[in-house]
């Protein structure tokens, strides 16, 4: 529970459906003196209040160390390797599911329910499928593609068939506060400033100034640190040029930022590792699917070929400008989320 409207309405729905509900909030690690946004004192007070209103027990479970190990360290490490990591994926897989499911079981719970906007469907062959939310605007299957058959079998998404506006309406009907935790672009564990400040403070060696090269490896400027940039980025380069320049690649060995014009940017082929197939096994043959390379980007059709060792090769039908190593590529067939992996550096 976050104290926000989604998890609160989820709890109310479960309670109404006759479930024996236990509310849980995870205490997550946070940079410096500020509290993690997911479990700040006011969020905790709000969640407690809601548990009190709906009359079920509520516990705060400490996951600070686990979160630091499983989410924060790989995040720092990812930037050290020149990629743009998405810490929410590790958090969902290792903390919000693996870790929490174990704790929930110890509290006597059979299922873990969250306020995510996504659906779970059981097939006649006893397999679980992850489906997009009916509210495509709010669909969160992109960050849930890391879930396994086992975790899906123990998961309930009470908001599966609801739109955000219906959820708000239900909150009113249940007399729950409709407070919204702001959807911040900043990471939950970064206190003051943004992730760049956090990296500089944590390990100054990660983000050092270096050269900006054109595609012909000629030095045309200097960058303040690779972590400040992401693939496809145009702003902040501070180079005067007759045509717009974009970040097309990062060379971690030379600590160099490679920029070029729009034609240099688009790619149709890339690889992804650490792939999770929701079905539990990779497809034997190449499959046609749509691919989403960022949480908020549209899907692009393409072919996915499973390789050895949890990797895939992805061939898009049309080039995309912002294929970013470290971000997830998530595969869909219509409403079904097939799985996804982490985009590989070149």
């Amino acid at each position, binding site marked *: 529970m976050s104290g926000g409207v989604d998890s609160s309405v989820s709890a109310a729905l479960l309670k109404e459906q006759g479930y024996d509900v236990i509310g849980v909030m995870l205490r997550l690690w946070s940079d410096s003196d500020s509290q993690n946004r997911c479990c700040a004192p006011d969020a905790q007070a709000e969640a*407690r*209040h809601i*548990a*009190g*209103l709906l009359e079920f*027990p509520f*516990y705060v479970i400490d996951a600070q160390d686990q979160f630091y190990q499983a989410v924060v360290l790989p995040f720092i490490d990812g930037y050290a390797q020149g990629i743009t990591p998405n810490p929410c994926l590790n958090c969902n897989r290792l903390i919000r599911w693996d870790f929490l499911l174990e704790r929930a079981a110890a509290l006597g719970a059979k299922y873990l329910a969250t306020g995510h906007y996504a659906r779970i469907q059981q097939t006649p062959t006893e397999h679980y499928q992850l489906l997009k939310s009916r509210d495509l605007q709010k669909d969160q299957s992109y960050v849930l593609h890391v879930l396994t058959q086992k975790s899906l079998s123990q998961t309930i998404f009470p908001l599966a068939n609801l739109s955000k506006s219906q959820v708000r309406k239900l909150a009113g009907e249940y007399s729950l506060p409709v407070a919204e935790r702001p959807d911040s672009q900043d990471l939950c564990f970064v206190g003051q400033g943004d992730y760049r400040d956090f990296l500089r403070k944590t390990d100054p060696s990660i983000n050092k100034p270096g050269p900006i090269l054109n595609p012909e490896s000629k030095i045309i400027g200097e960058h303040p640190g690779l972590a400040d940039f992401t693939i496809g980025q145009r702003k902040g380069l501070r180079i005067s040029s007759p045509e717009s320049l974009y970040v097309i690649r990062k060379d971690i060995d030379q600590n160099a930022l490679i920029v070029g014009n729009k034609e240099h940017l688009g790619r149709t082929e890339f690889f992804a590792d650490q792939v999770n197939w929701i079905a539990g096994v990779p497809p034997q043959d190449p499959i046609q699917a749509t691919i989403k390379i960022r949480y908020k980007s549209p899907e692009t059709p393409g072919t996915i070929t499973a390789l050895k060792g949890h990797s895939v090769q992805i061939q898009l039908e049309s080039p995309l400008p912002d294929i970013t190593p470290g971000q997830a590529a998530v595969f869909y067939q219509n409403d079904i989320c097939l799985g996804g992996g982490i985009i590989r550096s070149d």
Partner: protein
Amino acid sequence: MNNIYLDYAATTPVDERVITAMQPYFNIRFGNPSSLHQFGQQAETALDLSRREMAGYLGAMPSELIFTSSGSESDNLALRGTAFASREKTGANHLLVSPIEHPAVLATARQLADLHGFDVTYIPVDEFGMVSPTMVQTNLRDDTALVSVMHANNEIGTLNPIAEIGQLCRDRGIPFHSDAVQSAAHFPLDVNDLKVDLMALGAHKFYGPKGVGALYVRSGIDLIPMLTGGSQELGLRAATQNTPLIVGMAKAFKLVQVDHNARTNHIRPLRDHLINQVLSLIPSSQLTGHPETRLPNHASFVFEDADGNLLISVLDAAGFACSSGSACKTGDPEPSLLLTHLNYSLSWAMGSLRVTLGKDTTSDDIDAFLEILPGCIQQVRELKS
């Protein structure tokens, strides 16, 4: 005992509905609100809902309301807490208080002056004991740590222009505290309308239980806790919260909000009748406090050459419970500090009487009281001479 109670400013009987609301929290939902388990969670929920409800009626955020043991404790925390925090933060060393404050404020201010070196100024008041905003403004200093002016005076019922004083303090960025213990039973208290930064309440003056109070502390006002220990009450007051009494206070406060118009409409005409009759029936009598700008249940008088203390005893023996500014159970009365401050001569100040009405007072009660009062006063006057 069939005596008639006319001392609602001293305390009030607990409303039956309040008792019912409190009951489960003594022995069924008895958990410590700080405990992690479900007994604790039940108590915490009750605490949380009480805080939200009361804060809602006050126009405050729940995090701005601290539960205490009494109105006096709230006054103590307001004064000491802000005085020390302001001194710590800005070096402010001056307190501006009205001389008609409740002893909880006056004695605290005196101690802050005597033991801790704070400079205390008493704001001049008019003949009705009213504090004028102009006099507050005149006495404000750059190093003023806190201004304290009570909303309604307990002894003479006069109401102060709190919102105007609050605005003056706000313009200067100086915290403003008001003791609203007497007024809570009679008026809606919106902290934004009243422009207070701190405000003290005590439950037993509005048909709630004794031993519980609250202090409103506007967000951004720094306080140093006086009771240190656990982090209860946002770290501003250690000690396990008294859940049943807090639930009772919140319930009583809610009932007041719902009922105070009806209660005032019932009480005020009775009180007006009482005042008019007393002043016309009793020779050498005066109303103390403001004739109009006063608590709607409050009548206070002085009678020349009458021993107030003896009068209260005689009235009690005759079946009527009232009080007096100079009342003293040990039989060694001093004139009321307040009346002395308002320049009543000793022969008047020693003969004070306070009659305060409540929601259960009837016109029969008042008629019966008016019937015996002139005789009682005559008796007391004769005994004195």
